[in-house]
């Protein structure tokens, strides 16, 4: 008997049951894949670092004094052991195919021999690379992801005067430098190929670099002990390397937030649907109870039905979660070796949890059955004692047309039902808006203060020029003059200045720290923003970030000793500021400070301010012209400069995630609209028939139903627009805080995108879902009024 009732129910409410099944599938798919993903990413880093055999501390030295540095490290008492990995550094012009650059990248490339590899590198199958055949090479990081080479493709590497042709062997995962924030691509080659480069005099003189992997007895003592190594480009512990994977974690985290939101949406919709279906069946429930079926038997009937749907949905959802989870994790797993764990077991547990939650919902929804007498149930849940006014508006007083009036009145007469929908749409919209605000901010000049730079007309971040500075091939003044001369020759004279990156040793209270210090002789320290204190005014004043100040335990007004180029001087901390350079461990010298030109080994970029202050259009033209003049694509405006500093990959990844979320959200919204509208049609069939009988044409009725959803979508858009910034701040400020901006950032809110495009996507998706479903009302005839029960 049970089965017969169930069979009829499944047949009669086919659409509702199918939609319910789809939501169960979605909920399971999101639950299983997101839990698996977050487990992979959270456990992933520890596991990855362990497998890669990373050390406690890392030193990168870009000079030919590797032996000297090695000796100094060996003499440190806190050093337990260390490994030295020799390599050659070069810029993106050094890797070519058919004479063209393989990729354009602003950060430095490194080449090393696999036989001298001091950490483990992994291939695409996550196996340790132990051998690289002669004439072949692996790529890591951006070079691997952006070169679009197929295995076996030929390319050339030129370092110094030596050019070698390699055949591409595949991608290699590099735990130390492979993150998007580090972004230094490496080429892994055979030792005999490496020896050919090492034999090149020019390369040996200008391009030598060493990476030291150091383990210590005590990590803090080790960092402090190693902080006085002179002129090394990178001197950081594992925490920073770990933090450099933040973007991977952010992507995984965002996907988790997306999954959680979608999960909430799915469950809310599920609850609504179950509750709605049961309310619809009150009459049948009444008949069953009147016939003598016990409460538990009636409840059992629903539990069996939803258990069936939940099991089928969970099985399909679980099956789909595996490829879906892999798709979501692809970006993360491209440059990480993720611990697989047991995705099947996790998936099964999540699927069982979804089934349990659905049954719980069903159990709670069917509680009402117990309270109702057969007669109450026959009255479709109406007790006949309701005195609350349902309609809130009066037709006489309304200025709206009948269709509009009925739609508005319906929405306000069933607030709970439409509030649930508004909340779901609002969550979806806020999700898209927060992602968009983050992606737009990461590529906007609003981040300029946190990157310790001032606005300029154009920025050159070409690696080749910066390499010349790093290798000592050119001094900063020479480069500055060269750029200014070229600009003048091309009738766009301008001044060049740069934010210089210095790496002095700072000491105070017996604690030492090496940090990036910013210095620019052509701007005033007061041109930058400070969170506390006043801008360094005198040559012995500096500003520090809170993170750096905490490292040596100083506050505003305290004194610190800074050793630069072998000379130690005392400085007073005059201000705190926030910065995302070196993940917030930054200081700033006053423009009056004496910084020898020999100490200037690295710059953020070359900033150009044209003498004639051209308008934006002209500036854009000149930027394009400069790309030809300087033969690089790394000439940007302020937005482009910020994007280049943060990492274009990061912005691109966020934009991809945003696009994925938009598509998923649109599908969810369409599904919800279809489900809700279908539920409403089946609930309001008598009213629809009555309206038709009274003389409303089908178009009016469809418009009325669609309008209700438009009202909901507009309400959600307005609420989301108001909440967009606070929610973005709430969710994304902690991420920027990890990157160094402790006080949050000024978000770049693009009004057209946030207040028009995304709401329109939601409104259009809603209209599409509701309208297409409302077309079903064509099949309801005026004569169906006779079937009103």
């Amino acid at each position, binding site marked *: 008997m049970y089965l017969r009732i169930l069979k009829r129910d499944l047949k009669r409410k086919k659409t509702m049951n199918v939609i319910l099944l789809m939501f169960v599938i979605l909920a399971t798919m999101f639950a299983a894949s997101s839990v698996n993903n977050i487990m992979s990413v959270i456990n992933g880093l520890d596991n990855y670092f362990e497998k890669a055999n990373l050390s406690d501390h890392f030193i990168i030295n870009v000079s030919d004094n590797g032996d000297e540095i090695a000796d100094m490290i060996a003499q440190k008492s806190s050093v337990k052991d260390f490994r030295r990995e020799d390599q050659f550094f070069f810029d993106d012009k050094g890797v070519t195919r058919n004479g063209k650059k393989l990729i354009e990248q602003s950060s430095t490339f490194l080449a090393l021999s696999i036989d001298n590899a001091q950490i483990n590198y992994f291939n695409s199958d996550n196996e340790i690379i132990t051998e690289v055949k002669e004439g072949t090479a692996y790529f890591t990081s951006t070079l691997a992801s952006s070169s679009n080479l197929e295995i076996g493709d030929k390319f050339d590497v030129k370092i110094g005067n030596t050019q070698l042709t390699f055949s591409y062997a595949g991608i290699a995962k590099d735990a130390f430098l492979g993150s998007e924030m580090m972004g230094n691509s490496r080429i892994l080659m055979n030792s005999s190929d490496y020896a050919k480069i090492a034999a090149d005099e020019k390369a040996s003189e200008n391009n030598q670099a060493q990476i030291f992997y150091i383990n210590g007895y005590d990590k803090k003592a080790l960092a402090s002990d190693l902080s006085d190594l002179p002129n090394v480009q990178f001197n950081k512990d594992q925490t920073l390397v770990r933090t450099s994977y933040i973007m991977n974690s952010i992507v995984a985290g965002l996907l988790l937030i997306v999954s959680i939101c979608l999960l909430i949406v799915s469950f809310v919709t599920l609850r609504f649907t179950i509750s709605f279906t049961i309310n619809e069946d009150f009459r049948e429930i009444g008949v069953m109870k009147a016939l003598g079926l016990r409460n538990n038997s009636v409840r059992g009937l629903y539990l069996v039905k939803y258990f069936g749907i939940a099991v089928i949905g969970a099985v399909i959802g679980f099956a789909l979660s595996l490829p879906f989870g892999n798709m979501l994790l692809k970006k993360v797993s491209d440059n990480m070796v993720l611990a697989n764990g047991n995705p099947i077991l996790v998936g099964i547990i999540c699927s069982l949890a979804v089934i349990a939650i659905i049954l719980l919902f069903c159990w709670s929804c069917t509680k009402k059955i117990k309270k109702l007498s057969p007669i109450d149930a026959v009255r479709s849940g*109406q007790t*006949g004692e*309701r*005195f*609350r*006014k*349902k*309609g809130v508006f*009066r*037709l*006489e*007083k*309304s200025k709206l047309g*009948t269709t509009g009036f*009925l739609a508005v*009145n*319906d929405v306000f*007469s*069933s607030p709970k039902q439409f509030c649930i929908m508004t909340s779901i749409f609002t969550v979806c919209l806020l999700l898209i808006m927060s992602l968009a605000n983050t992606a737009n901010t990461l590529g906007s000049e609003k981040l300029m203060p946190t990157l310790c730079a001032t606005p300029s007309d154009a920025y050159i971040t070409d690696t080749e020029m910066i390499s010349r500075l790093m290798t000592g091939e050119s001094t900063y003044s020479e480069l500055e003059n060269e750029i200014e001369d070229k600009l003048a020759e091309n009738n766009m004279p301008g001044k060049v200045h740069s934010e210089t990156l210095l790496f002095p040793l700072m000491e105070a209270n017996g604690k030492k720290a090496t940090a990036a210090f910013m210095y620019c002789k052509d701007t005033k320290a007061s041109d930058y923003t400070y969170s506390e204190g006043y801008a360094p005014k005198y040559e012995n004043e500096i500003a520090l970030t809170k993170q750096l100040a905490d490292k040596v335990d100083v506050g505003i007004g305290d004194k610190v000793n800074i050793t630069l180029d072998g000379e130690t001087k005392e400085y007073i901390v005059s201000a705190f500021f926030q910065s995302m350079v070196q993940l917030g461990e930054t200081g700033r010298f006053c423009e009056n400070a004496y910084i020898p030109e020999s100490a200037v080994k690295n710059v953020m970029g070359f900033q150009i301010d044209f003498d004639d202050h051209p308008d934006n259009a002209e500036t854009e033209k000149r930027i394009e012209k400069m790309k030809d003049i300087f033969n690089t694509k790394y000439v940007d405006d302020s937005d482009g400069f910020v994007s280049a500093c943060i990492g274009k990959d990061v912005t691109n990844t966020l934009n991809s995630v945003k696009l994925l979320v938009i598509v998923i959200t649109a599908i969810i919204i369409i599904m919800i609209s279809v489900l809700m509208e279908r539920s409403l049609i089946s609930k309001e069939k*008598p*009213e629809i028939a*009555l*309206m*038709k*009988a*009274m*003389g*409303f*044409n*089908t*178009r*009016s009725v469809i418009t009325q139903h669609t309008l209700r959803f438009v009202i909901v979508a507009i309400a959600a858009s307005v609420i989301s627009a108001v909440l967009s910034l606070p929610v973005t701040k709430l969710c994304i400020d902690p991420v920027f805080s990890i990157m160094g901006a402790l006080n949050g950032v000024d978000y770049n809110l693009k009004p057209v995108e946030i207040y028009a495009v995304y709401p329109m996507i939601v409104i259009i998706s809603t209209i599409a879902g509701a309208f297409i479903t409302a077309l079903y009302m064509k099949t309801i*005839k*005026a*004569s169906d*009024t*006779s079937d*009103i*029960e």
Partner: protein
Amino acid sequence: MNTTILDVKDLCKTYIINKRQNNVLRNVSFHIDKGEMVAVMGPSGSGKSTLLYTVSGMDKMTAGSVNFCGKNLADMSENDLAEMRLDDMGFIFQQMYMMKNLSIIDNIILPAVKSRKNKENRRDITKRGKELMHKLGISEIGDNDINEVSGGQLQRACICRSMINDPDMIFADEPTGALNRTASDEVMNELTKLNDNGTTVMLVTHDAKVAAKCSRVLFIVDGNIKGEYNINRALSLHERERGLNNWLQEMGW
């Protein structure tokens, strides 16, 4: 001189249920003149309601012709039919169904506000709605929710709604079917008054007492009009009812 308002010729209506053809109406022909009050009677499943819905343009006919006010319903589009139902016809149903989110007065005036022919402003329409309610003795329930009134009051509100656009003809499907005797009498009195004022009425009923208030009765069996009975309204209601009952007995009722 009487003018025909509804002219039905060879009307057929067939449903296909589980691939089986079910001929609900078989070559039904009759006509109703302006000002008449015609009752359709017959056993359950004989096709009474189907006849009412088909001749009022709410349901499509399979064959035959239905002319309402000289217009052939078969030639009219769905939208034209909807407009005709809105402006020229009124409907009363057994279940007294109303829009649940509207107050009684808003339910009553809704067709007038919707009508394109009606150029009155909403205040005037509301005033007219209230006058109708007053006439039918339910003026106090205008602002009430539909769940707050009795069945009789609700059915009278439905009559008000059917009258709001001053239709040429009112179709009523068992208007007293869900009411007790007192409420039923009240509703029928209102319909009779309407008819006395010139509105044509066609109603479906099982109740001989209700049918006795009409001027003519069509008796339908198995989708065919088996007989027609003219009622002399000059007689007392009791006599009319007795005469009708006798005739119905002859028809096999």
